[in-house]
């Protein structure tokens, strides 16, 4: 089967899964449903020729589910009325639908699926083996051509971890006058 048909199937599955994730009342099932959506995204990456991304997405999904379940599963046993008022929801749906209709005109001008405009990457694809010595060109791009991006990524990740630890620490700042 061609890749397109697999992707239609996977994308439809992801859309249905995410709607279900947002509408299910039980929080634990909703977190597990978003796990299903993420794993099917990993499958879509495999079909699109990106095995590195598929692996990273898989690990990300597992970690994300562990974090979310650890954080929320105990605290949300009670069933809540989740929806906002009906008029607000209707207004939101109307605005989003109009954005969707307008976006169709915008997507007409994009390069069609399967025929990308590859300008910068031509040089990387031709020379990466010789210039960097890496067999995987994605690795060559991350760790050689765009190394500053990776540096920024590590900075952002480190900042996020610092923020998480700061928010979650048990003991606050010690008071001066206690000493």
């Amino acid at each position, binding site marked *: 089967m061609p890749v397109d048909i697999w992707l239609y199937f996977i*994308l439809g599955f992801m859309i249905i899964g995410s709607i279900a994730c947002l509408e299910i009342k039980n929080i634990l099932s909703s*977190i597990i449903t978003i796990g299903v959506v993420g794993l099917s995204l990993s499958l879509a990456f495999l079909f699109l020729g990106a095995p590195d991304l598929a692996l990273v997405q898989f690990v990300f999904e597992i970690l994300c589910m562990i974090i979310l379940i650890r954080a929320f599963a105990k605290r949300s046993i009670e069933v809540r009325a989740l929806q906002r008022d009906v008029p607000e929801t209707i207004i939101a749906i109307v605005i989003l639908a109009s954005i969707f209709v307008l*976006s169709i005109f915008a997507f007409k001008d994009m390069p069609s*699926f399967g025929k990308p405009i590859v300008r910068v990457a031509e040089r990387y694809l031709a020379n990466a083996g010789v210039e960097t010595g890496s067999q995987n060109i994605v690795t060559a791009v991350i760790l050689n051509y765009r190394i500053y991006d990776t540096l920024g990524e590590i900075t952002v990740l480190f900042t996020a971890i610092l*923020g998480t630890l700061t*928010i979650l620490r048990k003991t606050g700042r010690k008071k001066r006058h206690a000493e």
Partner: protein
Amino acid sequence: MILYIMCFFLFLVGVYGAITKRDLIKIILAIGIMGYSVNLFLVLLAYRTGALVPILKKGLNIPANMMVDPIPQALVLTSIVIELGVTALMAALAIRIYQKYDTFDITKIRRLQG
């Protein structure tokens, strides 16, 4: 083009969840869905029909126009890792809010309202 439109629809589902749900956990999940759709869109733009994975093999000379565009893949790899950090940060904030206000309902968190 239909694939791009479906991908954008997935993004709009995420936006819908983020603006209409009252539950903080649901809002975090909706932001996650938006992240998925953006990542998928970038990788969809990079795909070339019938192309191979951008990995070189010894003794097998694949011409450069038979491989997928590697740059969006590299950038999406960055973005996925950042998303994990952002999700963890949002979860930590939600836990703190729950400890302080005893609820995840954003309409009941009075002091956050303007």
